[in-house]
């Protein structure tokens, strides 16, 4: 993997090649491997190593970016030339700020962050992943089920060095296990990831997925309608993730955010409090944004009231001059910008739901439900209407009927059409938040939720 010293050397070579007023180089890449299994056999097994050097040049308010994964002199010369040629023909952007110096970008020196790089995880071999898969297949065989999934591992780096002396570097490892267990007419699913492979237990995940598949055999069809639902954490994160694109100063300036006119107002239930916090022990990721600015901990929602959105540096400067400035809460660069130039601005990507006052376990939520639906995960979620945040999607891999406080069996999967505003206003109970991962949105620290009047509109055929 590219080291911080090698990156500094590459930056120096680029700086000498460049004629631009300012230069910023973004480094990313690493090693990644993934063992994939289906039909109780490993059917795909891959490994890669890559590094991307992305050069942004600035000439008097004009900027552009070019990237390459080749590090020889000629390739670096070419990537600088491409970046500069693109930048020179831009129209000057009055909102473009100089690249940040270390002071503007936040604290200098090392960032206080939980350790996210573990040698044991970086050193996982194909044989070790195969052993993990063998355990999962063993569980499937024991229960006469068919299994499919992945066991992946990797080590990655991200860095930013600019011509005003900023130098940021972050490394982390990752490991992930995702398991689907298939019976004749039902299925179950579990997924977990962590920077530390020792935190993953493939056998336990396999047992839970297998139990879900077995408990949901011969699914009954029950009519669509409004139900109390108990959403497991993966289901919660996959649907709520779609609203965080709107917690962005740029989204408000562009008038594409559902928070326009709703900042400082109560939008969700009293029990909903949400932060963005990269330093949370259950979070992952680098502590700086696309310009190298340190990520702040930002309270987005407090007791149902939308308090703040996040900002890149330029967005904050624009917001302070805009008609919205008195109605959007505190305005400051929060360290959530994407690499420049971009259209999107910024977004919170380290979402943490605050614990509820009286957390309930999944079992307690079930036992207190007279009639409801227990949902393992959601699938193919898309936005139907942007201002009420109406989302559609399907349940998948373990949907159960709850009657008189207990799970009574599997049911056919539903299509939902539900507003996120409505959903987060109807949360009757939450579990203790956990690190969770799905397929539709990014990883978060989220609770399971019991939600009343969730709107299922159709039933599918399985």
């Amino acid at each position: 993997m590219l080291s911080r010293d090698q990156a500094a050397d590459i930056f120096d070579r680029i700086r000498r090649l460049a004629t631009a007023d300012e230069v910023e180089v973004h480094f990313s890449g690493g090693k990644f491997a993934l063992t994939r299994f289906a039909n109780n056999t490993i059917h795909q097994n891959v490994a890669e190593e890559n590094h991307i050097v992305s050069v942004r040049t600035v000439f008097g308010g004009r900027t552009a970016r070019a990237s390459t994964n080749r590090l020889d002199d000629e390739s670096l010369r070419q990537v600088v030339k491409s970046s500069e040629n693109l930048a020179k023909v831009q129209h000057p952007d009055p909102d473009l700020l100089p690249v940040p110096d270390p002071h503007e970008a936040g604290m200098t020196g090392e960032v206080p962050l939980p350790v996210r790089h573990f040698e044991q995880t970086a050193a996982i071999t194909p044989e070790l992943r195969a052993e993990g898969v063998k355990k999962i297949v063993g569980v499937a065989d024991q229960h006469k089920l068919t299994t499919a999934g992945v066991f992946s591992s990797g080590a990655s780096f991200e860095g930013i060095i600019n011509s005003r002396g900023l130098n940021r570097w972050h490394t982390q490892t990752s490991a992930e296990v995702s398991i689907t267990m298939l019976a004749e007419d039902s299925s179950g699913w579990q997924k977990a990831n962590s920077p530390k492979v020792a935190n993953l237990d493939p056998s336990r995940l396999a047992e839970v997925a297998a139990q879900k598949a077995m408990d949901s055999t011969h699914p009954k069809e029950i009519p669509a309608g409004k139900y109390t639902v108990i959403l497991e954490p993966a289901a919660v994160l996959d649907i709520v993730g779609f609203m965080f694109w709107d917690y962005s100063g740029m989204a408000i300036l562009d008038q594409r955010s559902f928070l326009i006119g709703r900042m400082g107002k109560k939008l969700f239930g009293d029990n909903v409090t949400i932060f963005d916090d990269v330093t949370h022990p259950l979070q992952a990721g680098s502590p700086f944004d696309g310009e190298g600015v340190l990520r702040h901990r930002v309270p987005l929602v407090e007791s149902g009231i939308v308090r703040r959105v996040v900002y890149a540096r330029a967005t904050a400067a624009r917001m302070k001059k805009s008609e919205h400035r008195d109605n959007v809460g505190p305005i400051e660069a929060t360290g959530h910008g994407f690499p420049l130039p971009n259209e999107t601005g910024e977004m919170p990507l380290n979402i943490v739901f605050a614990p509820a006052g009286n957390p309930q376990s999944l079992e307690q939520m079930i036992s207190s439900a007279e009639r409801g639906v227990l949902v393992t995960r959601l699938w193919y979620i898309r936005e139907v209407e942007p201002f009420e945040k109406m989302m559609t999607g399907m349940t998948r891999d373990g949907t159960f009927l709850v009657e008189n406080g207990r799970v009574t069996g599997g049911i056919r999967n539903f299509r939902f059409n539900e507003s996120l505003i409505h959903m987060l206003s109807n949360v009757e109970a939450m579990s203790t938040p956990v690190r969770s991962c799905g397929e539709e949105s990014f990883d978060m620290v989220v609770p399971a939720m019991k939600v009343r009047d969730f709107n299922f509109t159709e039933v599918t055929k399985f």
Partner: protein
Amino acid sequence: MKHVANWALNVAALRGARYADVRVVAQRGRSLSTKNGKVGSASDAESVGMNVRVIADGAWGFAASANLGRAAVEATAAKAVEIARASARVKRDDIHLAPEKPAVAEWNTPFRIDPFTTSVEQNIDLLLRIDAELRSVAGVTLAETNLSFNREEQWFVSSEGSDIHQTKLSTGAGYAAYAFAGNEIQKRSYPNSFGGQWQNKGYELVEELRLVENAWRTAEEAVALHKADRCPEGTFDVILDGSQLGLQIHESIGHPIELDRVLGMEANFAGTSFLTLDKLRKLRYGSDLVNVVADARQEHGPGLGTFGFDDEGVAAQCTPIITSGLFTGYLSSRETAHTIGESRSGGTLRAEGWNRLPMIRMTNVSILPGEKPLTLEQLVEATAHGILMQTNRSWSIDDKRYNFQFGCEIAWEIKNGKRVRTLKNPSYSGITTEFWNSMDAICSSDEWTLWGTPNCGKGQPQQVMGTGHGAAPARFRGIKVGSAFQGT
């Protein structure tokens, strides 16, 4: 680059691989966009690397590296074999590939104007002219435009003797106008949503799209939607425009016919398929008017699924998927062809880049136009009461590809052959085979367009691929409309 491939093939053979192929890939892309009168993004990207795919001990291994030096290439080949041996620890049967005659070939996307020779100033000027047109309409609150060019040069060399050099070129362009007012955001896109139109063509595509000429109308429609009635709920005859029908094909025909899904190989992520093997040549997928092919050949058109050879060296082919309504074919690969009784792969294996394993992907999955001359306006005139929907806004389908729901940007109610009012927030839903069996009319070739879907996601790690979908406007009887807002 052949020497790079040979280094890898030699090491793979020495380490005991029974089969190996190597792809050396050089990709270049330019992406430009504007937003509200300013350049939003301006970037150029190149990515170069190689991979080795091997079968050893009867199992697959794959490794990729950005480093094309001899030592790194040989280490990558050795790693691929090591990975294959690890795969063999959890296997049931040995991998067998359908035979394929080794090809030695050169293939290039035909184009008239190399987009990378056009000046960036010219590109930006075009986008800003469109932007100005869009924002000249009062009520437009956000205007976005985009232009992308991509070139992929690939050397494919296999242990069986294939040696293929292929260069593919694609272009995409489009824009959207948004109008925010009250508590509603409306949007219109041209010529399609999700970045517009994408084809394997040069800059001539941009010239053909008449982008500036359609900007004002597009923006005006976005603003006018605020005054439109909401699309009613109920059962209606529905006419879909070609671009929406293209996405309908993608989701409810293209994905379910992927043989890896059918065989359970994608069960953990993308899902499986209702099209189990027993349904081949037995299932009535659609009405007699439904004829669908998966055609990767240049003669089908410049789709994002057009190529000379797939990424395991199999020549482009045309596979009949639905023939007069009968389900007749899957998308297959050398590994999977035998499961449907075929002796040869259908040639659909593609990878996103040098660092990704090729997998079964849609080529150009297209519905054939009607044989009798029929324009969209004639189809409208022949409809007593229905709803015409245009341009996708949302799309969702279950993991076996039965139940779908689509939303569109705009619709018009048709009464007695005339468009009587504009409708906002239209949506429709249904079950795949019921929907295709309800098709009772499709426009003829003059209305047929080969649409590009640039953002098809599949696989773990996920790969994004471009696919093509030829479609003409078509009518469907008795479709459920408005369920997206049911109960709200």
